[in-house]
């Protein structure tokens, strides 16, 4: 249906319109608020946490939630609340960090393949296909075994195994955009290639890339926790939702608080990112507005 333009001085930019659409999605907004809060908490974790994550209180093992230990303590008497905050911080670090790796590798490979085409495209895309087909989790286990179990190496490992989707996305968009009519128009105007990439191609790729990253973050968190669960994650006593849940499961009947709190925060965090991703996907696609 044709919308006749209301004469107005300022137009709504792509981003302003996207924000307007995003705000309509209640779950996405709730997810975004949650994420902002946990990011702030994570930045200040060392100051917020009542106890160090590795400080044992041997007189207070398996304690139920109380005024002193809000979320109770674990088998070594460590404060569950503090450990949870650190686990969240690690998860976010790995979630965001791995996506930075994904972004760098995916964009470089995808845009080279898309712009150059031909042989180079074929070779790069075959490599991408192999990465895509390879069982990610297994690959991660191998990488972590080889590179070590530090926070940074896990982050790199998750990124190294997760860029194939991004590379395909970027390649597809570059292939489309480099032949898009408005890019042809810019070429006809005499624009240099660098200018076309800067002003025409990159800005138009941002939307889908952001959506892909938003869905990539919970995926990274998920893999990190999985690794920790099987004992391949961050080295104890550093907490991770994976190793906390793994440890808690053994005592689930007697001391359910050891599982419930990490599982809840873990699930909430994943949900929040997924809802935000959903909201962004709809918001950044102007055609979703009918």
């Amino acid at each position, binding site marked *: *249906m*044709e919308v006749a333009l209301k004469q107005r001085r300022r137009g709504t930019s792509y981003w302003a319109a996207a924000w307007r659409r995003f705000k*309509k999605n209640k779950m996405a907004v709730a997810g975004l608020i949650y994420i902002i809060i946990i990011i702030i908490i994570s930045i200040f974790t060392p100051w917020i946490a009542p106890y160090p994550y590795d400080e044992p209180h041997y007189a207070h093992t398996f304690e139920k939630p109380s005024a002193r230990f809000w979320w109770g303590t674990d088998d070594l008497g460590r404060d569950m609340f503090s450990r949870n905050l650190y686990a969240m911080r690690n998860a976010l670090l790995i979630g965001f960090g791995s996506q930075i790796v994904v972004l760098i590798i995916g964009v470089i490979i995808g845009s080279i393949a898309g712009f150059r085409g031909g042989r180079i495209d074929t070779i790069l895309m075959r490599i991408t296909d192999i990465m895509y087909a390879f069982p990610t989790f297994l690959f991660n286990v191998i990488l972590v075994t080889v590179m070590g179990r530090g926070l940074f190496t896990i982050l790199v490992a998750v990124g190294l195994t997760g860029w194939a989707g991004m590379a395909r996305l970027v390649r597809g968009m570059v292939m489309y955009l480099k032949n898009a009519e408005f890019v042809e128009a810019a070429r006809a105007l005499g624009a240099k290639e660098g200018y076309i990439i800067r002003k025409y191609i990159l800005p138009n790729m941002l939307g889908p890339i952001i959506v892909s990253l938003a869905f990539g973050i919970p995926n990274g968190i998920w893999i990190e926790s999985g690794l920790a669960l099987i004992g391949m994650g961050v080295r104890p006593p550093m907490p991770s939702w994976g190793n906390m849940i793994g440890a808690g499961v053994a005592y689930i009947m007697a001391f359910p608080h050891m599982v419930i709190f990490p599982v809840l925060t873990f699930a909430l965090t994943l949900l929040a990112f997924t809802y935000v991703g959903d909201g962004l996907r709809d918001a950044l696609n102007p055609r979703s507005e009918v």
Partner: protein
Amino acid sequence: MAELLRVNNLKTYFDRYDGVVKAVDGISYKLDYGETLAIVGESGSGKTVSVLSLLRLIKRNGRVVDGEAIFEGKDLLKLSKEEIRQIRGKDISIVFQDPMTSLNPIMRVGMQIMEPILWHRVMSDKEARDRAVELLRLVGIPEYKTRVWDYPFQFSGGMRQRVMIAIALACNPKLVIADEPTTALDVTVRAQILNLLSDMKEEFKTSVILITHDITLAMNFADTIMVMYAGKIAEYSPVERFIRNPLHPYSQGLISSTLDIKAKEGSLRPIPGNPPSLVSPPSGCRFHPRCVYAQDICREQEPEYKEVEDGHYVACHLVKGGKFNA
């Protein structure tokens, strides 16, 4: 001639993020047996919605809010889902604009012609087969006996539109709705399909509603013309009368802004402005912001849709006694 369809005060609205789109806002018309009615309008005029509403084929955010559509004594708008399904494809069928996307790509065209016949149990399987072959012959597919078992991708655009017409005719419908049936086709193929539609009308004696943006085509092809603007009927008239005496300024504008192949250089007088928003349409006559003859009354009061001559209806304040007085 007897009346096949009568639409009274049909209103179809769509809900959208910025408000309610009054796509069709109170239109009334009739169609006789064997008559060809051309509904002419630009995009957003409501020409397609006004017809798809009858078959309840509008998108989910749309709804018919008022009106009736009496088709052979039954009000289409009050029928149950099952009853309307009995009518679709059997009594009323549709030819869509784009033959490339309107056929099922993984089904042989013969099967697609047989489908409506079998659904509506008009005849046996064997008879339906023969009928499919016969229809392909009628719509002018060469080597129709073998091509009937081909897939749509093996047909060119014009041939697919012929198949679409064959499907529409499969159950001997009383009414065929042709929604821009030639718009997606090449110039030379367009003429072929128009000829085919003419022949089929003769052969099957069906009524046709031709939805088109092309007023030249409508004036050549139809018995009756209905010009729509912004969800309302601007003018409705037997074509012969319309050709001699188009009354609504929008009809006149459409004619003068249509480039004829014989048009002289500099003779074009386009209608100024753009089609209005249907969320907040202009006050009074919806055409007044683009009308060169607009007066105060046009801005303030909505013109009545009235019969000015026998069978010739216009909604314009400036038409009095069958004449346009500006």
